[in-house]
């Protein structure tokens, strides 16, 4: 296999990790909790995309992404409002919050197994099998779409956070909830909106990832590696998450090629632990 081809596939998977990692980071900053259900929300997004494709085969693929994202975002909004907010308001401990999101993740992945069945699904669209030529090598046709969506989403997020009132409110609530609520920001809404936004981004990643692989209820496990990515690039920083995702994606693809592909998941975590030992707050972290 050609090295540059490997690099390209690592980059594509890295973009998926990045998007899920951005979701982790946003939720961490806005609600102060580590959302172990993020990967499962991505999985739900991929399944929602599958259902959209089945029920409306005429819909172009690039339109499936926002629809699935919107539906998953509303699910995320409901979860944040009903299950997470009471716990946060009570000032529950970090251990409690982690367990709560773990529980939500289990419910989501097993709920999806009941709804969509235990067998892995493949998106029934031509994009799944199509390839384009890069140089003389065939590359899955969805790669450019993944790259493009990621750039659009990240630029969109940047604009949202810097140019709109909503973004300003979300950032304010994340940095200092007390002061922000004095200034008229509804804390409950701000955290739920951040969670919903993160779920939507995760869902977009899930729909884009589906054509490279298949959709299954265990897909959420990928979220765990995205987690390593978010941590590696310092939790809470969006550029950090993007870089972390790309580092993990490329690192595990190349590492899997050099060492052995069975240890791919381990490589992602060893990479994370190694970088954290050198720089305890992650790549983009501030000192202290």
């Amino acid at each position, binding site marked *: 296999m050609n090295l540059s081809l490997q690099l390209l596939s690592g980059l594509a998977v890295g973009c998926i990790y990045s998007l899920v990692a951005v979701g982790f980071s946003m939720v*961490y900053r806005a609600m102060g909790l*580590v959302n172990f259900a993020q990967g499962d929300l991505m999985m739900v997004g991929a399944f929602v995309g599958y259902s959209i494709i089945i029920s409306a085969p005429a819909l172009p693929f690039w339109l499936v992404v926002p629809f699935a994202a919107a539906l998953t975002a509303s699910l995320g909004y409901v979860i944040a409002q009903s*299950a997470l907010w*009471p*716990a946060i308001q009570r000032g*529950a*401990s*970090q*251990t*409690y919050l*982690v*367990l*709560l999101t*773990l*529980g*939500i*993740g*289990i*419910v989501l*992945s*097993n*709920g999806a*197994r*009941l709804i969509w069945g*235990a067998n892995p699904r493949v998106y029934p669209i031509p994009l799944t099998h199509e390839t384009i030529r890069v140089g003389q090598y065939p590359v899955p046709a969805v790669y450019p779409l993944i790259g493009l969506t990621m750039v659009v989403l990240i630029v969109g997020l940047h604009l949202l956070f810097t140019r709109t009132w909503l973004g300003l409110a979300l950032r304010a609530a994340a940095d200092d909830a007390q002061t922000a609520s004095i200034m008229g920001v509804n804390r409950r809404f701000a955290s739920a909106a951040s969670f919903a936004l993160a779920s939507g981004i995760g869902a977009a990643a899930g729909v884009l990832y589906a054509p490279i692989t298949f959709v299954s209820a265990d897909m959420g*496990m990928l979220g*765990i590696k995205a*987690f*390593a990515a978010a*941590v590696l690039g310092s*939790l809470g920083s969006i550029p950090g998450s993007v870089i972390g995702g790309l580092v993990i994606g490329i690192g595990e693809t190349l590492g899997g090629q050099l060492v*052995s592909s*069975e*240890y791919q*998941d*381990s490589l*992602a*975590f*060893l990479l*994370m*632990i190694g970088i*954290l*030992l050198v720089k*305890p707050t992650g790549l983009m972290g501030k000192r202290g």
Partner: protein
Amino acid sequence: MLRTAKESLSQQNDFASATSQNRNDWIVFAVIVSILWSVPLSLGGFYLYLGLAVAIYAISALGLQTMVGLAGQLSLGHAAFMGIGAYTSVLLQKTLGLPFLVTLAAAGLTAAAAGLLMAQLIRLSGVYFKIATFGFGIVVHQILSNWTALTGGSAGVRGIPVISIIGFQVETRTGLFVCEALTLTLIYGLLVRLSHGKIGRAFRAIGQNEAAARSVGIPVPRYRMIVITLGCAIAGIAGAYLPHLMRFLSPESFTWYESLTCLIMITVGGLGSLPGAIIGAAVLIVAPEYLRDFAQYKMLAFGVLLVASMILLPKGIAGAGAALSRRKRIHAR
């Protein structure tokens, strides 16, 4: 108004009666241990099998409870340490023919060493450490499934040797249960003792507020390392029994889901309560056996159970029981 008065009364009660708390814990200990020794052995058959499984996971959950519930060190890779214990014990028995008591100790020590290795990561504070424990679990599971020369890979290990203790061959389930129940009683007793001593108080202080614990002179990093090593060692000892129950050993018994199940056990039973860990283990082992027809809903039910118990019973079954008995006592006054 009445309610707050009652609560403050019960709080005063708590402050005034550290010794009575001590006595209560030993009463609960006596009740649980007598149930442990009487019920599975007298019912026999399938119940004995259930008792064997419950005892193994109860030991493991006690270790996790000490780490998570008492000292607040969340571990997301607990099953990995059970796996390290299980493989250490079985491989030593098979290849070197060592007696079970030696391999049991070796299982505990190896898991403790791995735990100590993981504990080195406490430099990564807070959230980072939690994720590192998760990564540790994944790495161990992948090594167990892929290091075929040592562990037999995902095909697993067959032909688990019979336990022999000082010349006695433990061939029946009854014999195995006696071994497990002895181990559980011993570990539970030691942990109750420990939780009332200086070390246990330090663990609790760290679990409640690390900064405050440091300010009163508790060497927090050292105690965190001790509690992580201790919890992992206990998991290793529990793991050493698992292959003898299943008559088979495979890495699939030590996945992320198993770690999660251990966490659900201590949460449902009640975070911070030692008897809660045992009750939680019993509930999560026994209930699925009676709901076999709904096996595909098992994890879903576990998840719902976890979320529901977190929202409705933040202190778990043990906490609800304690609150109930306290309320009765106040009414009786």
